[in-house]
């Protein structure tokens, strides 16, 4: 019998952590990535990684509080048990990264430095300057290179995932294409881990890298893999709008004391730094006295949107607000935020240490993603716990296996046996909003904790029982599709059938219809627009007939997949007739737990998307109104509390 192998698709934090953990169990790993893994999108993460730590714990914080914050932040949409396991496991991840040599910022005594982040009143974010994702990715990249040189991991860089190969509901391999030679071939795998990240490019300009099309997830979706909460897309409040993308300005800028404001006088023409303190409107601090500038991202984005779009109070009359760090010491800023301040300076040409930065919200992260399951752990309270207050003794400890069962083969497995989804590409941890600095945590947690599940599945599985023709047919199918697209290459492209034009129009439509504020009417209009774009895509013309390194082919194929995913995002939004976390429906402004504290599960059947509602695991924590103490919402808070109690 052939030696068992695991395929990992994607070389960001989740993929690399999985590759390392699985290879360590003496199972060879084939690692696929569209880019050299060191250039994966995880490098863009800036602010930090959350975990309970000794200092915060002595101030009344706990792993359990981290869990409670994450569930509350996600507006009770996440299955609760996996989140508990992640929060409990967090400190172990920090220690491991520390051992790998991540240069975490240090205190004068040599301990790891901490900073504040959104959605928490405690310092529980570990960081490495303002390029934490980059530093974490490099540490995992180095360990992967070590295993590569020992022959335990085989990299396929510049290879694009085209399809999973599934036999009788079980994953047995993949089809992939070399982006340089254009060779398409199949690979056998006893298990396949998808760790392919988010889908920001569906929205045109986002904070994501150019590879974050969501196409890999969409290709699984087309092959019957379920997709959970597609409508849950995070819009980051602070980004720098640009011609090619929106560049993130990390939440750590606010964690380190950054203040968001606009001039009290609409259209004030004075430069920000010349406007006296008394003539500035710090609207987040005014509306949220407890959390201030550190309210979760969906709330900050909506408030900024409200101030600019509805109140027309944006800086210089445009859609932008100030993010101000000029009151902080230069050396302090350079030490803690140097990397992001340089980004601002390089792209805007102003020194953010001297002038307040001008920022606006941008699409950033997908909480939704491939649907995954798990085996619940030992903690099973007789009734859900109420709100957890700082300093209270947590109802349970922190040992492994309380939330999810350690090593259970189905942890983060999709509805297809042997096919897993790790990191941003799954839907598991962040519910309806992700808290800042929880993404790096969930990616690495998946790789390490659930990498063991993959290894166990492979060890206990009888091996691949699939005939060669299954693989050959899968390759042929993809080759035929590629050829049909390439054959259009020499024909004259019109804007009507130009793939770049179609993708641009998709981005504009999705940004307008399905980001900060949504309505049923607008979403339905978007559905029609998507149908039109799909029709145009069926007549798409490539513009490049080359059989060597044809980027137009890759982009065009991804555009077709983005159209499929966009449909799921819009349909999920239409079905969810409520407001929850990042999903804000103007026509249904309240959260509706009775009908919608459920996962919207998109299923691709008969060439169309169907949305089902699935029950979620709410055994551990009782839902409460998610207001973050907003001053003008005390009345509605009361109302929701009464409703929740009844």
């Amino acid at each position: 019998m052939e030696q068992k192998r695991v395929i990992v698709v994607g070389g960001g934090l989740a993929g690399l952590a999985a590759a390392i953990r699985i290879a360590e169990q003496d199972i060879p790993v084939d690692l696929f990535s569209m880019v050299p893994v060191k250039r994966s999108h995880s490098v863009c993460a800036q602010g930090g990684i959350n975990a309970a730590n000794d200092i915060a714990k002595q101030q009344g914080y706990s792993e359990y509080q981290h869990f409670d914050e994450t569930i509350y932040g996600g507006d009770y949409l996440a299955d609760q048990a996996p989140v508990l396991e992640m929060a409990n496991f967090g400190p172990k991840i920090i220690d491991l990264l520390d051992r790998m040599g991540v240069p975490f910022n240090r205190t004068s005594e040599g301990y790891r430095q901490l900073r504040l982040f959104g959605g928490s009143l405690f310092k529980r974010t570990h960081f490495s300057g303002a390029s934490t994702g980059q530093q974490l990715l490099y540490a995992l990249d180095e360990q992967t290179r070590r295993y590569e040189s020992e022959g335990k991991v085989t990299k396929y860089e510049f290879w694009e995932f085209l399809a999973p190969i599934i036999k009788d509901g079980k994953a047995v391999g993949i089809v992939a294409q070399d982006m340089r030679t254009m060779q398409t071939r199949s690979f056998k795998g006893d298990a396949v881990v998808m760790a392919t990240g988010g889908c920001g490019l569906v929205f045109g300009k986002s904070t994501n890298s150019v590879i974050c099309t969501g196409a890999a997830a969409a290709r699984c979706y087309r092959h019957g893999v379920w997709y959970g909460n597609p409508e849950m897309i995070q819009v980051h409040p602070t980004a720098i709008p640009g011609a090619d993308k929106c560049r993130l300005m990390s939440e750590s800028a606010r964690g380190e004391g950054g203040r968001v404001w606009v001039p009290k006088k609409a259209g004030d023409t004075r430069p920000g730094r010349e406007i006296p303190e008394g003539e500035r409107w710090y609207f987040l601090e005014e509306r949220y006295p407890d959390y201030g500038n550190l309210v979760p991202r969906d709330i900050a984005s909506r408030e900024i949107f409200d101030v600019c779009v509805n109140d027309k109070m944006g800086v210089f009359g445009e859609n932008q607000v100030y993010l101000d760090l000029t009151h902080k010491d230069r050396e302090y800023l350079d030490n803690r935020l140097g990397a992001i301040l340089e980004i601002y300076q390089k792209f805007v040409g102003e020194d953010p240490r001297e002038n307040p930065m001008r920022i606006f919200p941008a699409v950033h992260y997908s909480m939704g993603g491939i649907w995954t399951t798990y085996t619940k752990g030992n903690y099973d309270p007789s009734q859900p716990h109420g709100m957890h207050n700082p300093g209270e003794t947590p109802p349970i400890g922190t040992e492994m296996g309380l939330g999810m069962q350690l090593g259970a083969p189905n942890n983060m497995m999709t509805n297809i046996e042997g096919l897993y989804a790790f990191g941003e590409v799954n839907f598991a941890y962040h519910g309806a909003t992700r808290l800042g600095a929880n993404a790096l945590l969930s990616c690495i947690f998946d790789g390490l904790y659930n990498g063991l599940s993959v290894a166990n599945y492979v060890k206990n599985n009888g091996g691949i029982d699939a005939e060669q023709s299954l693989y050959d047919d899968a390759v042929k199918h993809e080759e035929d599709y590629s050829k049909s697209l390439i054959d259009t290459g020499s024909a004259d492209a019109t804007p009507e059938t130009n793939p770049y034009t179609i993708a641009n129009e998709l981005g504009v439509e999705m940004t307008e219809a399905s980001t900060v504020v949504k309505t049923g009417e607008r979403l339905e209009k978007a559905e029609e627009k998507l149908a039109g774009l799909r029709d145009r895509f069926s007549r798409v013309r490539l513009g490049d007939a080359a059989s060597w390194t044809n980027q137009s082919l890759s982009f065009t194929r991804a555009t077709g997949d983005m159209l499929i995913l966009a449909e799921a995002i819009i349909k999920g939004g239409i079905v969810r007739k409520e407001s929850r976390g990042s999903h804000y429906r103007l026509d249904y402004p309240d959260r509706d737990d009775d009908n919608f504290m459920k996962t919207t599960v998109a299923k691709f059947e008969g060439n169309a998307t169907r949305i089902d509602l699935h029950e979620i695991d709410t055994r551990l924590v009782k839902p409460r109104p998610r207001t973050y103490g907003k001053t003008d919402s005390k009345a509605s808070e009361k109302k929701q509390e009464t409703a929740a109690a009844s």
Partner: protein
Amino acid sequence: MSNTATTPATNSATAKQGRTVRFRILRCDGPGKPSYWSEFDVQPELNANVISCLKQIAEKPVMVDGKEVTPVVWDSGCLEEVCGACTMVINGKVRQSCTCLIDDYAPRDGDTITLEPMSKFPVVRDLWVDRERLFHNLKRVKAWVPIDNTYSLGPGPKESPESQQTHYKLSECMSCGCCLEACPQFTIEEDESKWNNAFIGAHAISQARLFNNHETGKQLKGERLDELAGPGGVADCGNAQNCVKVCPKEIPLTESIGAMGRATTIHKIASFFSGKK
């Protein structure tokens, strides 16, 4: 939402909006094929960079003579200058194309910007080069911390803030290859079997320094110094000091080369007296 850029950039005060900028691009259809120049006119968007102009060209690849051609191929990723992918030679100087703002490079109507692929790596197509050798050289110096495993074994070593700042600076290297493009000693080598004896380059020497300074990374110090003492090692540096001038992250590469040069010398002497070599 942010689909329209509103923030004025550096030179937007002087740069004329609605102007036409000419892109002169050195193209190549694939390995072994001849290189040739193509010219495109672009009207840059507000806050345009080289990437957004290349995107415009991809959407409508029509040359200045009106001839429609295939879209230009290039490599890119984060577009925030942290991934290193979009490195190319712009107006004769190597740099990332994402941070190359058109208002700075071509503020006037009719200004020209020249784009070429890096010359020290084999061209895949057009502006896309194959930098595999750069990653290979990280293996040569074992640029990693040899941890036991990924199980829970407590924290890593404590570190002073000063040491962390040095460590972080070196660790910001994104393997873009600017230092290699600018180095007279680093020459293109398409034959993989010769990589282990060819000059390893400033980036890998600096990574060796990073891991030799780490408490656990030190365990492999001898092996790293053996590699740097061998053919294509630190002695091959010609001290042109171009590397440090082009590093986009301002990593003190010449300082690293100096430190590793001294360490290699001491290592050789120590090895000689201990009878190892």
